């Protein structure tokens, strides 16, 4: 039963995770707009999300340290390895920086909006599940 609830929200939580990660990458791009030789990075959202949903997360990456044989093995799930890609610069700058402020800010705003809409979907889904439980 519980795993079904988990499965119902799984896709959305993976998508939200990835949006949060992308938001961070874009924030790093904006922060490094004046750093010489910094290369702008981004995530291919579609393929990474498909990979995260299909293959699941690699379970071996995060585990708790046990100091006694009688401890329970704490198995946390790690985020899938996200491939950070390099953005192709439209106008190269002389200091080797490939951050295009306009592109980054548009992407940042777009990603923030999609994150919010994802949150709305999750909220609605939780409400639906809740009303089903309370019948």
């Amino acid at each position, binding site marked *: 039963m519980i795993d079904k609830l988990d499965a119902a929200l799984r896709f959305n*939580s993976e998508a*939200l*995770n990835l949006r*949060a*990660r992308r*938001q*961070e*990458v874009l*924030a*790093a*791009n*904006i*922060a*490094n*707009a*004046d*750093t*010489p030789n*910094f290369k702008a*990075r981004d995530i291919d959202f579609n393929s990474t999300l498909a990979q995260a949903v299909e293959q699941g997360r690699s379970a071996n990456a995060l585990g708790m340290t046990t100091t006694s044989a009688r401890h329970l093995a704490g198995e946390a799930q790690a*985020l899938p390895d996200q491939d*950070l890609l390099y953005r192709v610069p439209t106008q190269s700058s002389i200091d080797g920086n490939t951050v295009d*402020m306009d592109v980054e*800010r548009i992407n*940042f*705003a777009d990603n*923030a909006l999609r*994150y*919010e809409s994802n*949150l709305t979907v*999750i*909220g609605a889904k*939780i*409400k639906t599940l809740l009303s089903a439980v309370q019948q």
Partner: protein
Amino acid sequence: MPFASSSMNIFSVAGSAMTAQSQRMNVTASNLANAESVAGPDGEPYRAKQVVFELAPSGQQDTGGVQVARVIDDPSPARLVFDPNSPHANADGYVAMSNVNVVEEMTNMISASRSYQANVEVLNTAKTLMLKTLTVGQ
């Protein structure tokens, strides 16, 4: 769950950029203030300072915040002004002034200010998103 530590990281990334940009603005202010300085405490003409930014890696992959790697002295030669009456004048009557380029410093300041504003915006967006995340399912 969606509230990964990565979204917390945005604050440190944007915060480091704001610190770096304000340090850049500080250096610009010092340069502008000393644009007409004839000599510093060591008797040498003031040299314009410039900050050098570098990436402050936050994890295994090469993204992250910014840090000021070092502050360098502008190597361009001092500006010579003909003023034989000045006590700092050399044998030919020239005074070595600071090598600050005022136009360059002004554009530098505007650039730093814009970058600072962009990072403030990033911070505000991240804050809004996190607050919305806290209310999910209510």
